[in-house]
């Protein structure tokens, strides 16, 4: 059952559940962050409407900076502004930011320890028709290895807004990963959010939990469908929304592993280096646990619909359900 302490959207399993992209939530959250703090500035690489920064641009034209198609410059200009006391949100598509400008982020943002917020839009394979060039599925890996960098992957549009406002208040370099397509809204504005604190979205009503699913991004909604399916079959599942990949909520992962003894991770990312790796690194050292990491298995993306691609890579309902069945065998 849904964890009622988190005040989630009760409509989540119905056909008319609201759908909205995390980029839209980001755009709204950024305006609120800008209202709350005049030092919040926004920079973009010729993708202002696409990453939904145009709302901020309209609200605060004097605090919006168009950088042009120049992602390396984007990261370092943001670093310079942060050195002067600004809280810059620097946005482009994840493939280029942080894909193209990794070293500038590492050295001019993180090594300098300035509070630049890297905004990677259109992440994951669900970018779909644009094809493999534009499907960033390595970004979590390259961000989480940089010291000081915090990595956030909101589960839905509401959480994207809340997370955007939260990261605007920290002094840390942060990467926030956004998706293009509309997905189910599962949290509400009343859902508590804390950077680095995972959310237990689903737990068995009465029976004990035999599998723990740890997921990030919009796939969390599919994980809830799977959990509900197994609940009806008499198999207890717990679903953890790991919206913060770094710092990872070690306590929540360890408790889940100890209780369920079976962990399945789910992400729109390479199996190497992302959420699954972060969980495996922790469990391998602290609490060896039977595990399955779902993700893209060392190949590039390609054109297709989001549904087709998620199915191909085992990230749809059937794929996640099968993984749960297999791990219990």
């Amino acid at each position, binding site marked *: 059952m849904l964890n009622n302490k988190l005040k989630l959207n009760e409509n989540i399993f119905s056909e008319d559940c609201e759908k909205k992209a995390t980029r839209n939530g980001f755009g709204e959250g950024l305006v609120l962050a800008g209202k709350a703090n005049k030092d919040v500035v926004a920079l973009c690489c010729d993708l202002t409407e696409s990453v939904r920064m145009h709302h901020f641009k309209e609200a605060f034209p004097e605090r919006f900076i168009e950088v042009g198609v*120049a992602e*390396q410059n984007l990261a*370092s*200009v943001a*670093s310079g502004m942060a*050195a002067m006391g600004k809280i810059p949100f620097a946005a482009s598509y994840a493939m280029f930011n942080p894909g193209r400008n990794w070293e500038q982020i590492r050295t001019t943002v993180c*090594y*300098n320890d300035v509070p630049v917020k890297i905004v990677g839009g259109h992440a994951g394979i669900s970018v779909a028709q644009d094809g493999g060039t534009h499907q960033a599925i390595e970004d979590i890996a390259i961000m989480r290895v940089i010291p000081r960098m915090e990595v956030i992957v909101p589960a839905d549009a509401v959480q994207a807004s809340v997370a955007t406002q939260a990261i605007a208040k920290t002094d840390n370099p942060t990467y926030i990963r956004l998706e293009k397509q509309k997905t189910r809204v599962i949290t509400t504005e009343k859902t508590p959010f804390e950077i680095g604190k995972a959310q237990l979205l689903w737990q068995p009503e009465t029976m004990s939990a035999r599998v723990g699913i740890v997921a990030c991004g919009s796939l969390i909604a599919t994980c809830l469908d799977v959990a509900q399916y197994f609940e009806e079959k008499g198999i207890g599942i717990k679903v953890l929304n790991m919206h913060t990949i770094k710092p990872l909520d070690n306590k929540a992962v360890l408790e889940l592993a100890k209780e369920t003894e079976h962990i399945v991770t789910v992400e729109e990312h390479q199996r190497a280096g992302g959420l699954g790796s972060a969980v495996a690194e922790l469990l391998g050292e602290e609490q060896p646990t039977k595990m399955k990491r779902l993700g893209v298995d060392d190949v590039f993306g390609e054109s297709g619909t989001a549904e087709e691609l998620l199915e191909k890579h085992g990230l749809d309902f059937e794929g996640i359900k099968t993984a749960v069945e297999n791990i219990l065998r």
Partner: protein
Amino acid sequence: MTITPEQVQELEHKANDIRIDIVKMLAKAGTGHTAGPLDMADVFTTLYFHAMKHNPKKPDWSDRDRLILSNGHICPVLYVTMAHAGYFPLEDLDTLRTLGSPLQGHPHREHLRGIETSSGPLGSGLSQSVGMALADRIDNGKTSGKFFYCLMGDGETNEGQIWEAAMMAGKEKLGNLVCIIDRNNIQIDGFTEDIMPLEPYVDKWESFGFHTITIDGHNIEEIADAIDQGKAVFEKPTMIIARTISSKGVPAWERDYLWHGKPPTQEELQVALNSLEK
């Protein structure tokens, strides 16, 4: 700020003292870059002892000018000049590139107060300077009185990011940005025009929207005048192309690109000191 002949002479002596400490420091460390630091000694001396608004006792003073060193590998000249200016004791120069030293192999902002940015990976200093200059304009308008000095190497401008930043500086008409390029014509693998030709250099910068000034980078008066001119140009950023001779001050090493990235041995140190202590 007109410079008097007496001031010029004083700064020339100071630059020579700085060169002496650079070669001593590098020889003691046994590691580090030599050519660029020696050829930029006159520019750094003029900035820290004449042109720049700063306070070594209050490195975090918010109204200070900012010096952004983009080609971080020439930090020996930055460190020695800062020590002479009073940011830290001269004895600390003996710790260059050792474990726990504030004087990292390439500058790190957290290791030494008074350093505006960490640098070493080439090509990002101009972008950071653009960001700082823009932020100041947002907060304080076009007449804040703060200036942002970005120092770059000529070989460094092979980097594409430099030209991304140059476009933006021109677009934003950053009159508070004054850049100085060490045009010593060398880089690690050889002469700049053999590796990746930069000329017509002035035309390039002008076409990107900069007011450009070419000077003798070893003439204190020309350096001071060019900085004054850059500060007076209100409507666009300024690029001072400082024509320098690599390893300036040690004739035996001058113009030889092999001195880009190596320190002097103890014997070579004596050669340098014989030239510099004349």
